[in-house]
């Protein structure tokens, strides 16, 4: 697969990407309005982002801590010397 083919594939992909990304759109109102009213009352956090990732979507954060500890142990396994 020489360079021309790679270039063609990249060009085609960039055409698709640009056509679909360069579109003027506004974010929707619904989920944001809910957080605006209920956010502080339900979770007690003034900072909505913290309320979101620690209360409403805490499951993502649990997943993310697992990714972090997985990476730390993985680096330890891969880089550690044989005992």
């Amino acid at each position, binding site marked *: *697969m020489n360079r021309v*083919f*790679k270039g063609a*594939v*990249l060009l*085609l*992909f960039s055409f*698709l*990407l640009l*056509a*679909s*990304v*360069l*579109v*003027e*759109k506004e*974010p*929707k109102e*619904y*989920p944001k309005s*809910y*957080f605006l009213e209920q956010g502080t009352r339900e979770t007690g956090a003034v900072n909505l982002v913290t309320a979101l990732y620690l*209360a*409403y*979507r*805490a*499951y*993502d954060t*649990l*997943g*993310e801590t*697992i*990714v972090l*500890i*997985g*990476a730390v*142990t*993985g680096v*330890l*396994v*891969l880089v550690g010397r*044989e005992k």
Partner: protein
Amino acid sequence: MTSDAILLFTVIPLFGSFVTLVEKAVPSLKVAKPAALASFFLSVLLLGLYGEGIYGGAVYSKVVGGWPRGIGIGQELDGIAWVALALVYLIYLPVLLYSFSEGGYDSRFYFFLLLLQGGMAGIVLAYDVFNLFVFLEITGIAAYVLIGYQKKDRALFAGFKYLMLSSLGITLFLLGVFLLYRDTGSLTYTDLRTWALEGMAPAKPVTALAWISTPFALATLLAGIGVRTAFLPYTWLPDAHGFAPHPISASLSGVVIKISFMVVWKLIVLLELSEARQFLLWMGSAIALIGVLRALTQTDVKVLLAWHSVSQMGYIFAGFGAGTEMATVGSLYHMVSHAFFKALLFLSVGTVILFTGERSLVKVSGLGRSFPYLAVLFAIGALSIMGVPPFVGYVSKSLIFEGLKNHSIPYWLLFAASVGTVASFTKLSLLFRGSPMVAGKSTEDSARPRGSFQRVEPTDTPSGLDTRPALQTRPFKSGYLGMSLLAVFCVLGGLLGTYGIQLFSTIALHGSAVSMGPAISVGTATLYGSALPNEAAASAFQESMQLTHGVTFLWLNGKEYLKTIVTLLLGYGVYRFIVSKKGKEVQAWANRLRISFDNQLVLLLVGLILLAVFLAIQY
């Protein structure tokens, strides 16, 4: 059974992994292995509790943390998810038992093994696109590290390539999540489904080309997960599964690639992407043949098996792609049967490598007399993959072929692939047939104690692969136990074929991905109720597959037997050709065909563009 507990499927393995970490911190506490076993039994218990509900078509949905539906993260246990979880745990036990007896794994190995199980359970239960992204990442990290765990140089290189390809795929998946979030404003599957039913119009397009954004978004989504299930750049799989530690390649080939395909299955059924099914049909049958052709030219036993995983996944794609009831049930059934016999094959061949220290067919053969029980286990696995009647492979393959009758070209491609499979497994069976030979020297005399695990110091290891320390004699009992379990599953899966079809037809068509069933959601209010479009089709299919018809279709059906015999004969013919002198030259030439890593990345983009084109046609 209330739907609050479905979250335990992911929490139990993750808690088990926390316990194994305790052993890493305090080495005196030997808790890693018991924790791994305990998490197996607890999860299977939970699975059983939900069993009869799921069979009745119930769907359990729960939002984590009790928040309203569109706000928190949803979890759903439906028919497909239940089958996937059952598959995860049925393969997890033999892999665990094998790793106990193989030894040389410390508590960190079990940490990652439990992380893998927890990640897969999370993927299957996810009902939120971003949550799916997180759990895909967890399974990914566990898989990368486990592949390179024994730090052999080929495994490290394979693990690195898999990491880069899979991370590129997941980043594209994140791009797809963004595009969908932009158009629908939410991340849950339900809103995606309502958006898909309204014709997927991108909100208020400005530029003339805005219609491209939807097919592109779906293409990035599917291609992102597709990398994991050997969709288009399937070239990473032979190295990754071939050079991973033996229990890991069994677990990867058996389950991990299927779980990501189940997500693709859910998304395609959810968003009604019939064009994507066409793409799967054509690509699946092409991959099936390519996989077998590459497998025929391999000499390294595990890489040969890994290429067969690629081709068997091709069957599953083609079955799902065809879309007829028979083929869909066949595809789901083949996922289960492939997991059983591929895991058995990887473990049995892995034991041969452990016992003799040799990986290449040129160097080792004729072990039948010294390891008769291992030969029997291998034979069961090989016969199942060839689709020989009494075993599980026969049932699912004949279902797929039956479902593909009216697609002529994919049918013949898959038939050629079956012939190739028969040929390459007769070649692989040389391990146990012919004159006994280990590391190039014939070992006629060496009386090896039965079933014990004695590693012969490999004399000339070409690629410095197996540089383990010298002889370790240790009984291999729990390894054999694990493999015998898999063998029993292979045989039972075949003999109880008709009941299997009943179970899978109710699950595949009735309680399918999008709670298409009457959504008897136990516990919280009905969340995702939607009429079952193919209710009539499901019940009609169930009547057609009633016990009597099922039996006649499977066991008294002359045509199927004829087809199997023809495949076997043709396969033997191809085998004769490969073993002949001319065949060897073809093998040598084919082995020089290598695809560099950069081209694999380009292949991913090519796959994505192809998928986008297919999706655009429907749009």
